[in-house]
């Protein structure tokens, strides 16, 4: 595992980087890291650009609370299918193209938002812009291809965390851009918010091109070259989808991710309006306070990834599962307390900050587990789980934050109880060779059984299609419980 001539970082047998250095821009690993989080960041900025300007937009377009809720739903729901499709796209043509094309394709919706005149136009544009959230799947898939198990949790979490940061940054960035446009339009508020949408639109176009030309799919090259040369399997869409969908672990994580990332999306939609309406703070103050929620992404998601990697080092995959269950259960508890603090702004903000840290740590911990659910159908699994995040946001928003009969602070409490209940689905996630939260690993099961014999037919194995996966099996033995690693070491020395 020495530094090779080709790469400036230590790499494993798959040429995946074994260390993450966020200050490096070296090709291909770290430049791709920066392109992936930046693309995801921009999609979050644009998807939630409307939220801090809602007090102006709702008066301009005459929107009701159910209409606002439905538009917020559209922003996170439309991308459910897009995320599932993105998983397959990543498996077939690579994450670089997937990420850049979705950014470029959603740019026109940002510009079109400036011309809406009623609820229908507002809904369609938020739906179209929200499709950009599929960049998340490409981002995570990309990092799983570029970084090995020693730091994949950290890489996934940092890239996604910095991407999610867009949801926090937009809460004060868009009001700032709105203020500039307000001055430039001679104090015409209903025109100023429309001009402000030029910013996310331009970012989509510029960053989309940057990702396309500066990123690289895999350490050894782009998909087209590698599939043509035979170094990479040319996958069948139907086959990889079936492999992914047959794996019950994926479905458990679809649900659990729905109530960490889904909660974050929901909060990005409602928190500025909640602070404005419940506590009577000004628009700009509500935006700044609301941004604290998303700003925790700067470090909190990485913390989740770091704890996941650390606990894996100590306890194997069992450590990763316990990390996820603990952070996400605590998330539910803090959500309840945030709702209960409805009469105290200071307490609300304090609980909101800790709640946000737990939400993002749970997301980081989730994607410490996702790369191991399937190897051959990694894109499909990433896509479905990512889509689960949006499905969770849809369910949470529709159930708790759209109806007139439920106050927002009540909705927060109900959401907290739901999070705690759904998080119990981490318990049945069991890997035969690594164990689960409560059950031990099988003495005889191996990584080859799970990743090769389970996902390839004997004919495919004979044809050599599973050869690249063997390297992954070797590199992921660190997920074994300590007793099994020691047993392995004893057998190796014997």
């Amino acid at each position: 595992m020495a530094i090779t001539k080709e790469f400036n970082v230590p790499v494993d047998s798959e040429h995946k980087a074994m260390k993450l250095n966020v200050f490096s821009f070296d090709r291909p690993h770290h430049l791709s890291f920066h392109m992936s989080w930046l693309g995801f960041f921009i999609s979050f900025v644009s998807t939630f650009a409307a939220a801090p300007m809602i007090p102006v937009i709702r008066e301009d377009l005459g929107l009701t609370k159910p209409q606002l809720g439905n538009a917020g739903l559209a922003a996170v729901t439309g991308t459910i299918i897009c995320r599932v499709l993105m998983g397959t796209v990543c498996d077939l043509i690579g994450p670089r193209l997937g990420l850049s094309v979705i950014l470029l394709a959603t740019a026109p919706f940002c510009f079109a938002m400036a011309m809406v005149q009623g609820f229908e136009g507002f809904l369609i544009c938020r739906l179209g812009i929200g499709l950009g959230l599929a960049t998340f799947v490409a981002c995570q898939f990309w990092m799983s291809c570029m970084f090995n198990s020693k730091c994949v949790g950290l890489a996934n979490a940092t890239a996604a965390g910095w991407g999610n940061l867009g949801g926090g940054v937009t809460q004060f960035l868009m009001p700032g851009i709105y203020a500039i446009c307000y001055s430039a339009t001679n104090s015409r508020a209903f025109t100023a918010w429309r001009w402000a949408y030029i910013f996310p639109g331009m970012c989509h176009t510029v960053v989309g091109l940057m990702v396309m030309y500066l990123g690289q799919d895999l350490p050894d090259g782009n998909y087209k070259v590698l599939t043509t040369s035979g170094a990479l399997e040319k996958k069948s869409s139907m086959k990889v989808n079936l492999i992914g969908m047959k794996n019950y672990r994926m479905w458990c994580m679809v649900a659990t991710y729905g109530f960490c990332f889904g909660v974050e999306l929901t909060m990005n939609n409602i928190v500025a309006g909640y602070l404005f309406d419940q506590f009577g703070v000004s628009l700009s103050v509500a935006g700044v306070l609301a941004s604290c929620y998303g700003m925790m992404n700067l470090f909190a998601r990485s913390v989740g990834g770091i704890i996941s990697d650390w606990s894996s080092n100590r306890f194997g995959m069992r450590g990763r599962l316990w990390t996820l269950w603990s952070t996400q259960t605590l998330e539910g508890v803090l959500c309840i307390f945030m709702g209960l603090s409805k009469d105290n702004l200071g307490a609300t903000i304090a609980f909101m900050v800790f709640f946000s840290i737990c939400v993002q740590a749970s997301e980081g911990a989730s994607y410490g587990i996702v790369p191991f659910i399937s190897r051959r159908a990694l894109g499909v699994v990433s896509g479905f789980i990512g889509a689960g995040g949006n499905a969770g946001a849809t369910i949470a928003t529709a159930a708790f934050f759209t109806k007139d009969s439920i106050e927002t602070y009540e909705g927060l409490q109900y959401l907290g109880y739901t999070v705690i209940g759904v998080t119990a689905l981490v318990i049945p996630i069991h890997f035969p060779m690594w164990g689960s939260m409560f059950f031990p690993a099988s003495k005889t099961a191996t990584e080859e059984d799970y990743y090769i014999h389970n996902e390839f037919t004997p004919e495919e194995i004979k044809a050599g299609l599973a050869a690249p996966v063997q390297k992954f099996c070797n590199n992921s033995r660190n997920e074994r419980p300590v007793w099994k690693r020691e047993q392995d070491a004893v057998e190796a020395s014997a």
Partner: protein
Amino acid sequence: MVELKKLLIGGLAATAMLADGAHAFTKYSEMSSNTLGVTTTIDGGACAAGSKAQGGLNSINVAWTGASTTSGNTMMVKLCYDDSELASKPWRKKKDIVNKNKRCKQTVVEADYLKAGITGGSATGNVDIPLPLNIAPAKYFIQVLESDSSGYVRYGDDSSCTFEVVTYDRLPQALVGTMSFFIAFSIIVATAGTMYDYKKQNAAAAQYA
């Protein structure tokens, strides 16, 4: 006898204070017997059903009767959403506590009052108010409040005049033209960029074909 005299004097003083309306209130329901008569005209013309006014262009004249003659009292005018504009909009919720009543609060450019600090001290009065530029397009009525140094003492709604506020052209040609250009530009750039990359990748892969 002395105690009785003190009680009588206190009672008379309290009655005098109540008659003067000097006791402050915080809720509308507490002022239900202390009301002002309010009438509104738009740019000098009578307010009738279907009357319209534009923010930043038209002015309204608000007149009131029945106010206190105590010097030092001030009047304030609020623009309140009509009943038809409240459904499913909790940010316009009607509340009994005057300072928490969202029904008469503007949120686009935050304002609790249309005009405040108008000198009182006379039983009748009126004021001309230019309508601000950024009023939400909706139906409104006018509310007038009287306050003294300790708080609100009287209020009145002009329930006979509900007028509609319309706003300026929110989609000027410059905005429409610019955004239409960028929509076309972004589609062209996306198409051209993707095609160029496709050719570049095919060229790189050609050596392995």
